[in-house]
């Protein structure tokens, strides 16, 4: 294997006998030998890789999982067809997701000498017209998102800059700068943008203890949910003597509504690899695993390719850049168990055992994978490292709040106009994320709450919209950072129903090992189901049991929190506790009045026939599956509440708008 980046015969680096200055040389043209032509060659090459110099037009398609879901593959085909039909020479580049998932497929077009312009919602049918126009020099305004800013290229007049777009302007992109911009399948593009220089600097100039110290100093905390100081975790592992240590990248992103890790791996896999290499060096690990869920096939493919490229370039493997440090990265696919995101269950899973948590101590940093010291960091945490090392701890901790430094990526979803991936500085107001970046609630509905932190998190109601998000502030309102899923809910969302959804998720994803989590969540779910179902479906003492359940809901939740084995169980009652705290009135309406204020709990709806509007056509009588509608033909009908199962058929079939529901 020979790196493709040799300038001339004088370059002597091989993976077996690596040159320590390899990255400096490739990225900056700092050569080991004096040669103007070689220098020039690198300079031009890097300009091209950074798309500052183009020989022919380049077309970029956001082909991450979200883009593909929106039809990016058909858009790609249309682009290729257009180019072939019109005999236009252009590069077509598949990039990852830039974060603005709501307007995928996103297509960027860059002409030589000009800035790169992004267009939104470019479905296949829009391709010919768009390319026709852009190649002519006309920028169609209706599909325009904005142009990338550049120091050297000529911008278009009357085209807004992407970084001034309301979705992007409030963001600080430390982890995502390359996502949706560079070609994730080209290691050289990553290097041209400064990639691997932080790692190269670390292994040549920093000692592991100093690196741990620096990361501790920076205030970087685990982005996977717990928020444990990364540097401290590293130090535990560094200071535990062992002949073998491991680093594990936790990419088992399982929270409903979370897709940060996927986007990073799909859009910028080398950033993750570089972060892993830095972390492994810091703790003295020579073997690292990426535990990634098998449901991310594209991310896995990108990662595999990236690992191969890094090996070819001598950035993974033995004696990396002649530093004496060696590292192998192995991909381990998870079989889709939520609990395997928990550190010790993840370790069990890698070891080939059933993914069930182990009691701690011993902590993984002391005795983890195969009994060896192991550090487990989440994708985002690791992807922070290249930038952190580059700017230094001081500058890193300058951004953020007292206790939480740097940025955080959130996956914004639910009832919000601009769904997507956003990276903001710690301490950004929730309101800014939902309303400024997110563009508010669609269809003129009212905001109700945000569910943050996945099933283990909590919801934040309107009165706390101005909270400045960091690890601690979220706890004060009964939520938590979690991995960064941010689901927006509007007035149509029933909070009891929401709690039921999350409880159902947790209960089916509990591993079944410890009793409080396994049995407790099952009973909590049953209680919620009873609350949200009609009295008709609870014959006998059903209604009584239902009251009893509610009486003990709090108590049960406390015990589950207090006694469960792992984080999943300890936070399992959060969806209930959190909604109970802020939306107790909704629970009460369900329990005492058998009514769902949001109108989401189907069984609790009551249907009525307006006697004035009803013509007595008997259509609803014929369609009612339970015979709950009475009345003679041509005279007003009525619904027998005890028989009605609230299926809504009468409402659907009535031609006179006589059926109402509340």
């Amino acid at each position, binding site marked *: 294997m020979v790196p493709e980046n040799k300038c001339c015969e004088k370059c002597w680096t091989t993976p077996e006998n690596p040159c320590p200055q390899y990255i400096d040389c490739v990225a900056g043209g700092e050569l080991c030998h004096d040669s103007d032509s070689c220098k020039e060659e690198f300079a031009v090459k890097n300009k091209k890789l950074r798309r500052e110099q183009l020989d022919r037009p380049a077309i970029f398609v956001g082909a991450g999982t979200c883009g593909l879901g929106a039809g990016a593959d058909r858009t790609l085909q249309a682009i290729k067809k257009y180019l072939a039909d019109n005999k236009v020479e252009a590069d077509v580049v598949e990039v990852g997701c830039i974060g603005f998932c709501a307007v995928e497929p996103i297509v960027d077009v860059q002409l030589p000498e000009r800035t790169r312009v992004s267009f939104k919602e470019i479905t296949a049918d829009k391709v010919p017209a768009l390319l026709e126009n852009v190649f002519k020099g006309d920028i169609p305004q209706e599909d325009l998102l904005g142009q990338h800013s550049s120091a050297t290229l000529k911008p278009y007049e009357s085209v807004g800059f992407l970084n001034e777009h309301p979705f992007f302007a409030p963001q600080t992109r430390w982890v995502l700068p390359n996502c949706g911009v560079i070609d994730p399948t080209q290691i050289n593009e990553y290097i041209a943008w400064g990639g691997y220089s932080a790692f190269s600097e670390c292994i040549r100039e920093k000692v592991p203890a100093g690196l741990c110290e620096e990361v501790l100093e920076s205030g970087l905390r685990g982005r996977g949910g717990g928020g444990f100081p990364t540097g401290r975790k590293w130090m535990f592992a560094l200071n535990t003597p062992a002949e073998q240590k491991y680093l594990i990248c936790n990419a088992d992103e399982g929270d409903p509504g979370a897709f940060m890790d996927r986007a990073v791996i799909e859009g910028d896999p080398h950033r993750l690899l570089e972060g892993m290499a830095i972390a492994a060096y810091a703790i003295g690990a020579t073997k690292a695993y990426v535990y990634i869920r098998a449901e991310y096939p594209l991310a896995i493919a990108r990662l595999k390719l990236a690992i191969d490229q890094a090996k070819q370039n001598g950035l993974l493997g033995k004696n990396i850049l002649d530093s004496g440090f060696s590292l192998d990265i192995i991909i381990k696919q998870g079989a889709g*168990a939520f*609990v395997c995101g928990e550190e010790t269950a993840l370790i069990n899973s890698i070891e080939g055992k*059933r993914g*069930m948590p*182990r*009691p*701690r*101590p011993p902590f993984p940093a002391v005795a983890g994978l195969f009994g060896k010291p192991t550090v487990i960091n989440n994708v985002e945490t690791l992807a922070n490292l290249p930038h952190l090392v580059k700017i230094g701890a001081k500058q890193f901790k300058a951004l953020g709040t007292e206790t939480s430094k740097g940025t955080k990526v959130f996956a914004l979803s639910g009832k919000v106009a601009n769904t997507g991936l956003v990276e903001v500085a710690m301490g950004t107001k929730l309101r800014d994320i939902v309303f400024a970046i997110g563009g508010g609630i669609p269809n003129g509905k009212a905001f109700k709450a945000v569910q943050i932190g996945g099933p283990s998190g909590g919801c934040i109601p309107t009165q706390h919209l101005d909270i400045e998000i960091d690890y601690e502030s979220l706890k004060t309102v009964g939520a938590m950072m979690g991995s960064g899923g941010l689901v927006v809910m509007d007035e149509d969302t029933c909070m009891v129903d929401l709690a039921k959804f999350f409880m159902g998720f947790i*209960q*089916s*994803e*509990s*591993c*079944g*090992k*410890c*009793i*409080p989590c*396994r*049995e*407790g*969540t*099952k*009973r909590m779910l*049953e209680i919620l189901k009873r609350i949200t179902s009609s009295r008709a479906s609870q014959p006998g003492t059903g209604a009584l*049991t239902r009251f*009893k*359940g509610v009486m*003990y809901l709090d*108590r*049960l939740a406390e*015990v589950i*929190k*207090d*006694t*469960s*084995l792992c984080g999943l169980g*300890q936070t399992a009652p959060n969806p209930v506790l959190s909604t109970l705290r802020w939306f107790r009135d909704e629970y009460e309406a369900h329990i005492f009045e058998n009514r769902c204020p949001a109108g989401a709990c189907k069984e609790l709806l009551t249907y009525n026939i307006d006697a004035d509007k009803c013509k007595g056509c008997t259509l609803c009588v014929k369609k009612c599956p339970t015979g709950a509608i009475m009345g003679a033909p041509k005279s007003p009908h009525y619904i027998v509440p005890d028989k009605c199962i609230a299926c809504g058929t009468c409402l659907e079939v009535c031609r006179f708008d006589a059926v109402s529901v509340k």
Partner: protein
Amino acid sequence: MIEIEINNRTVTAKKGEMLLEVLRRNGVDVPTLCHIPDLFPAGACRMCVVELEDQNRLVPSCAFPIDGSVRVKTHSPRVLRARKTIVELLLANHPNDCLYCQRNGSCELQSLAEELGVREPRYAGDKPVCKIDISSQSIVRDPAKCILCGRCVRVCEEIQAVGSIDFIGRGSNAKVGTAFDEGLNVSSCVNCGQCVMVCPTGALREQSHTKRVVEALNDPDCFVVIQHAPAVSVTLGEEFGIKPGLDVCGLATTAMRRLGFDRVFDTSFSADLTIMEEGSELVDRITNGGVLPMMTSCSPGWIKFVEQFYPDFIPNLSTCKSPQQMLGAIVKSYFAEREGIDPKKIFNVAVMPCTAKKFECQRPELSNGNLPDIDAVLTTRELARMIRMRGLDLMTLEPDECDMPFGKRSSAGKIFGTSGGVMEAAIRSAYFLITGNELETLDVKTVRGLEGVKEARLEINGLDIGVAVVSGLGNARKLLEEVKAGRKDLHFIEVMTCPGGCINGGGQPYGTDSKAVASRMKALYKIDRDEHLRTSHSNQAVAELYEQYLGKPLGEKSHHLLHTHYERREVML
């Protein structure tokens, strides 16, 4: 030493020691449902949680190593509420059929519910509908009663190295099952019953033969013979409230007679017979270049283990039937002839400390045509149940002797009940068979004790003999791997399926702990110490049997009645 404070009382603890051990040592009883001493804590049941002064959450004491001074509250209101809630949750998912349950009165869940004052079903809801697995000859699994403590899974995997059961499914659908959730009979289960011994509830129990025994007893045409294994007499008393370590052989014999058995024989007699056959086989293999190391064959769990996991070692197994089967075969041949009874009318019952014996007795090769050597096997527990059902107060009975011709035994046959016993008995007799002299001291202390692996080297007539004694299949697996890897210094290996041997068998009283096992072992060696007939070859009853019927060890009749063969076994692993 670290000083810690338990409920305002200061005690000392070693660094790294688990809090639960400290608590128990100091007489503070904290309940557990998943704990197995000496294994890495599972931390699954959360019953042992305690409150620590500087911790937010309750901490499981089984998995909390002492690292510094702590203040512990073991029974604070918060702790008690947590424990009670956990039991309530278990009960909410448990069939409320205590009155019909075999473990009524010996169930750990039941007693915890009582201790914690659970008086009403607080959390009502769905209960799983489960099928009872009666496919196994030895063990019945009733998943509805399973509380998923995981003890059976861990014993099977970590102690027995069999791993035929594990958790299946997630959340409230999680359950314990075999590979592909098939019946236990087609799994790799070796029927040892160690899972039954650790099960806190009635989810695992033996396949009962009580009914067929009672029916045989009530059949006037049936001649019902019972034999009892060496390890039964030192444990049966525990079922009647006696502290472990008392031999109730005489009382048990009386009780069995009162139950209506026509003859009461002692399996220790056929243990002596086994030694004559197996000892001769060993001498034959050593002197005539047979397959070595020879391995014992009296433990049926071990036999199945070899057949399915190590079929290459089948030639190493002694061809001797187990003492149970030998006696069964002799009763239906020699005894039947002698007494003039039609062997078809004899119903052979064996009381065993074992569940695997139930599997063994139905192996087709252990029969004479259609006539099985043994018709029913009762565990120690089942015998105790029958005695109670009959209204007998064991401890007030008059002790009695077993019936002849199979009622006399040497103490060498008696110590078969403990790990190392077969080896010691074999050494005593092999020495005699080779040299013609008795050993100077009959005690072979190196093979005694509760350790999982014991080894010794002896010199007999200038022959350097290496022997090993292992108990617990996990230990057996390790030794087999050594032999497989080329270890050549061993001639004879005694393997007992259960850790400690039959005194810790899967058919023994519930609640057996390591202390009880030690006491039982002591009781067996005490019998041996006090006995004057201490070698199998000097048992006159055995000699008579050879004289009158069998001829000589390894002779043709022996071969036909007392020896068997084994086959590779395909199971789902």
